[in-house]
């Protein structure tokens, strides 16, 4: 190096250190390492865990479930609001899962208030639509942060934890009154299941419409008291659905509900008025039930943001939060699959 008019190496080295240190710090900041308050997918998923820890190898929520296969028969009416191939008249294969809103895969069925269904519909072009719906008509809280706060408060031993939570999130009392008064049934087949979250459907003309959807059972709904359900045994829901489907396919209507301008599309805790336009787009038929351990639904993450072209997310913040949390749950449970044997003896894998 013959050049004598250079900055001193010390100054240059310091500049390099600042640039590299700054890059590393920016990375750490982006990763949230300086932001302990940030609601991460890991925190959300961990908040579900019961005091004894999560059930390894199982979904972190809606942990108890049973697989089904069947079809979705589109009647063509959905093409008016969405260009998704799944709404074109025809029959498409379905893989799904009936489940309970619990973290315990061995829970007594009669003790779980929220029942759900995961559905995956595949069209011949390879596009996939996944939806995870539950039977309440609205969600307990307005935001993912409030849901996290609910999980924390419900496990908090402090006497006023829930009281404080409800004071901060008054919408929860609406859900609590539903949970306390809505009739119970003795069958997954008698439940309606609702997307609760809103999505945007776009038709071939490019017109966007904000929608929610739900499936309405064809089976007759017979209210049963929770006390009577407790007499049916811990797994009566799985036994019932297996028996019903073996006897005859079970059906639901898939209904798309279209928002009016001004409806609360970003808040799943708020129902839309009952007079909103409803489009019956087809029939979900369940033809076969299989245990989850080695069933076709086990490997599926029913991430509600897996959508075909023609359906996208809306201003509802939940689908993104659910996608992030479901993915973390999937990463964890697949890494633990040895704890959830595929066969009763655990021989395979």
């Amino acid at each position, binding site marked *: 190096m013959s050049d004598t008019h250079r900055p001193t190496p010390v100054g240059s080295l310091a500049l390099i250190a600042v640039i590299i240190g700054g890059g590393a710090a920016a990375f750490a900041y982006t990763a949230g390492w300086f932001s302990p308050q940030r609601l991460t997918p890991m925190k959300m998923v961990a908040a579900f865990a019961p005091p004894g820890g999560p059930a390894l190898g199982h979904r972190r929520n809606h942990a108890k479930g049973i697989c089904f296969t069947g079809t979705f028969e589109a009647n063509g009416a959905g093409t008016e609001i969405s260009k998704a191939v799944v709404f074109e008249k025809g029959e498409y294969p379905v893989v799904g899962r009936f489940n309970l809103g619990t973290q315990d895969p061995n829970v007594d069925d009669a003790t779980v208030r929220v029942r759900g269904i995961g559905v995956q519909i595949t069209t011949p072009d390879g596009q996939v639509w996944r939806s995870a719906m539950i039977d309440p008509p609205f969600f307990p809280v307005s935001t993912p942060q409030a849901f996290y706060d609910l999980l924390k408060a419900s496990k908090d031993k402090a006497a006023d934890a829930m009281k404080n939570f409800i004071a901060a999130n008054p919408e929860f009392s609406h859900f609590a009154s539903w949970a306390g008064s809505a009739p119970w049934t003795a069958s997954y087949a008698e439940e309606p299941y609702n997307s609760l979250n809103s999505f945007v459907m776009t038709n071939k003309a490019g017109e966007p419409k904000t929608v929610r959807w739900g499936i309405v059972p064809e089976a007759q709904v017979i209210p049963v008291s929770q006390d009577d359900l407790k007499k049916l045994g811990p797994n009566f829901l799985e036994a019932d659905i297996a028996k019903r489907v073996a006897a005859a396919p079970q059906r639901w209507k898939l209904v798309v509900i279209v928002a009016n301008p001004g409806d609360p599309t970003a808040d799943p805790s708020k129902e839309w008025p009952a007079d909103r336009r409803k489009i019956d787009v087809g029939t979900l038929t369940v033809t076969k039930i299989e245990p989850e351990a080695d069933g076709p639904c086990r490997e599926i*993450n029913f991430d509600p943001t897996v959508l075909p072209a023609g359906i996208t997310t809306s201003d509802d913040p939940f689908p993104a939060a659910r996608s992030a949390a479901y993915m973390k749950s999937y990463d964890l449970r697949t890494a633990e699959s040895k704890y959830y044997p595929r066969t009763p003896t655990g021989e395979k894998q």
Partner: protein
Amino acid sequence: MTGEMQRFHPLQRLLHWVMAVCVLAMFFIGVGMVSTVMPKFLPLMATHKSLGIAILVLVIVRIAVRLRYGAPALPADLPPVIRLGAELSHYALYALLIAMPLLGWAMQSAADYPVVIFDGFRLPPIVPQSDTLHTLFWDAHYYLAFCFFALVLLHIAAALFHGLVRHDGVFEAMAPVPTHPRTAPAE
């Protein structure tokens, strides 16, 4: 390698700086998206997938261009240890540029997630659904990302060291625009 070559071919420099921007963006998008449940999670995830596949395509082009045009020789006075480090770190950078997108694609495939890039272009799965493969590829993608970022920081530090301390023309060889003319070899 052409002994006469003082700077990389303009196409090589263009590819280097376009990829530099993409790769740096990938680190921040990646580490940001896995630490949030906010609505931005979805566009970050979608961008991460699209950009990852774009980088995979670009690195293939880049290797072809490199094989065609070669690279300027390192300074003759570079200590052998530094020279070895330079060569090994560049092999590692190329290996990671290829491996990271493939691991990401494979881990998504192994989880049976549809891999949709650029808002509607669907890629086929490259491995079947498998809990074991998903965990393997997920771990590799995750831990290698941190190694990759550390290596990029080292690469930047080395480039700046060449440019600001050694003044040996190595930085100028890849600089996006000509800086000051390369000083004649001193000895």
